[in-house]
């Protein structure tokens, strides 16, 4: 196994720069997930690690060796694609053994390794089938099998579960998690699904517009998002945002209010939050709860979605701002019903206003 080091990695297609100087350190045996919206550059970054895309600038190291110019086949990596990319004219056994065949492995070695991979992935009974006779989940197993038999130093996954239906996705997600633990391998995983990111990752890298917005442990990103984008991207439903005024700042707390938010003291741990300035208040839907009196937010219910174990309530505040509250209970709300919402001030997030925030991100990344 090996570590992976990206230093100032850039990628341009002609005049268009899609990766704008990315620095990431992936430790040996770590499970790192690149996450972000479509077009953020996460797949491009993975393909650069794989050697399927040229690197325009910066240095890429795998296992301490600079591999910028090293062809994909010599990087000691294996990759699992979203479309599975298993060879339709070969049996499962031939597919799984493909890399070994190329490497000139003996028949006995191939048989042993294929059998071991089949056992780990529970597909012993599929080995003589053709891909057309397999379901989506089984095909993805074959693709993973092909990756593990070669015992690569780094596993790369490019949205491997996106083509699967919801229940299968959950199963395969758990299997990939187990596989990581059993192989103790370095894995880099790309997804736009933040649930996959949160559940699988040791470290999440959030990307947007070719910049790293934040990287860290899943719970760090959830509890201490560094900017509005990360705060909005991590967590479902998305964090609620509303503009507030900073009335006063006293060390690690600031008193804030607005025409829709009653005055309260919020924790501060970012730059750019000062007395007399504007700020954006962020509250996760899970941190909001209905109260009978003295709520910080007041509004009317426009929609309530009952999911059995939770109820998601869409509330229109007095000035028309919409917020979502996610209650960990099954509860009935009528549309038009007046509601007051409270929250633990400790769970509030204060961000510099949106415009300033974007600028900060750009400067940090550059």
């Amino acid at each position: 196994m090996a570590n992976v080091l990206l230093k100032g990695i850039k990628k341009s297609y002609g005049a268009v720069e899609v990766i704008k100087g990315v620095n990431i350190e992936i430790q040996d045996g770590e499970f790192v997930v690149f996450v972000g919206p479509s077009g953020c550059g996460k797949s491009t970054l993975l393909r650069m690690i794989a050697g399927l895309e040229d690197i325009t600038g910066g240095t890429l190291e795998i296992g301490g060796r600079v591999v910028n110019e090293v062809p994909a086949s010599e990087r000691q990596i294996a990759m699992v694609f979203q479309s599975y990319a298993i060879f339709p004219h070969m049996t499962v056994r031939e597919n799984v053994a493909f890399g070994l065949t190329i490497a000139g492995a003996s028949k006995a070695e191939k048989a042993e390794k294929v059998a071991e991979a089949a056992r780990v992935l529970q597909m012993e009974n599929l080995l003589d089938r053709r891909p057309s006779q397999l379901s989506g989940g089984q095909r993805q197993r074959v693709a993973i099998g092909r990756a593990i038999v070669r015992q690569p130093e780094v596993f790369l996954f490019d949205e491997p579960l996106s083509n699967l239906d919801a229940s299968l996705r959950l199963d395969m997600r758990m299997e990939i998690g187990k596989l990581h633990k059993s192989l103790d391998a370095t894995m880099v995983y790309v997804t736009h699904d933040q649930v996959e990111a949160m559940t699988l990752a040791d470290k999440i890298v959030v990307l947007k517009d070719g910049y790293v917005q934040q990287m860290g442990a899943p719970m760090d990103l959830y509890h201490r998002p560094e900017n509005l984008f990360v705060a909005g991207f991590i967590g479902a439903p998305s964090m609620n945002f509303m503009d507030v005024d900073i009335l006063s700042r006293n060390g690690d707390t600031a008193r804030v209010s607005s025409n829709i938010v009653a005055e309260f003291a919020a924790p501060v741990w970012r730059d750019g939050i000062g007395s007399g300035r504007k700020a954006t208040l962020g509250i996760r839907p899970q941190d909001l709860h209905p109260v009978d009196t003295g709520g910080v937010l007041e509004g009317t219910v426009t929609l309530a979605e009952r999911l059995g174990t939770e109820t998601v309530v869409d509330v229109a505040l007095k000035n028309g701002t919409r917020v979502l509250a996610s209650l960990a209970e099954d509860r009935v709300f009528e549309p038009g019903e007046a509601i007051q919402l409270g929250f633990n001030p400790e769970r509030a997030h204060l961000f510099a206003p949106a415009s300033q925030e974007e600028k900060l991100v750009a400067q940090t990344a550059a």
Partner: protein
Amino acid sequence: MASISPDNHGLRLVTRYAVLTLVAVIFVFPLLFMVMSSLKPDTQLLNDTSSLRAFLPVGDISLDNYSAAFERAPIGAFVLNSVLITGATVLLTLFVCSLAAFSFVFLDWSGKAVIFSILLATLIIPYETIFIPLLLMASQLPWIGGDGFEIGWLNTYRVQIIPFIADGLTIFLFVQFFRDLPRELIEASRVEGASWWLIYRRIVMPLSGPVIATAAILKFLFMYNQYLWPLMVVQDESIRPVMVGLGYFTDQLNVPWGEVMAYLTLITVPVLAFYLSLQRVFISSVASTGVKG
């Protein structure tokens, strides 16, 4: 949505079959005329052309025309030559053109787009326009063979094969097909450590059955029907292909039509056999050109 009544459905079916039958008749009748005429003496054959009898095995039916045709021309040798020339050209074309297309689609090299455009432009140049310069060139080309070094390719098999191996249309067909192959299959192979040659041999070509069949049929027909070029470059009867053999029947005032038809029937058999053997793949290829699966 309006439902289709059974009557309406039946009418559509009848119309569809009527059109298909008409098209089939248009295509089949010339063949039928050829085969039937090959069984009749010339006088009857010419009389029958004014009626439907031309398409029926009626009157004085015999295989006399076939035996006469065999006496007039060395048909066996001609067919063998054609099979050899056509077979070799088809195989070499498939190999060379698929490699070229592979390079155009999967490899990065500068000037690729320009060269591909030039290649496409050659599609509009008929072979007939380059035959004279090609003939002059072929007469002066060197060759090292069993007899050592020699100058001039005329009167050989190779002059009937090599000029037709690389062609723009076949490369274009392969390029179009390769472009539709899932990119990830190639990328997965690269990551697994496969060389380009191995990717070509183990991944791309095994998945290219339909385009191989299409290209093979088109090339086969083109080569099998060659007349002008072999007439120009080959004088030696022992290496002439079938189409040139037609000349054996037309060098007199009275054309023996029955024998011509017998000869044509005989030389059509290999074409039909070849086409029918690849028909299924050919049809699936034509059908898949518009639909991505």
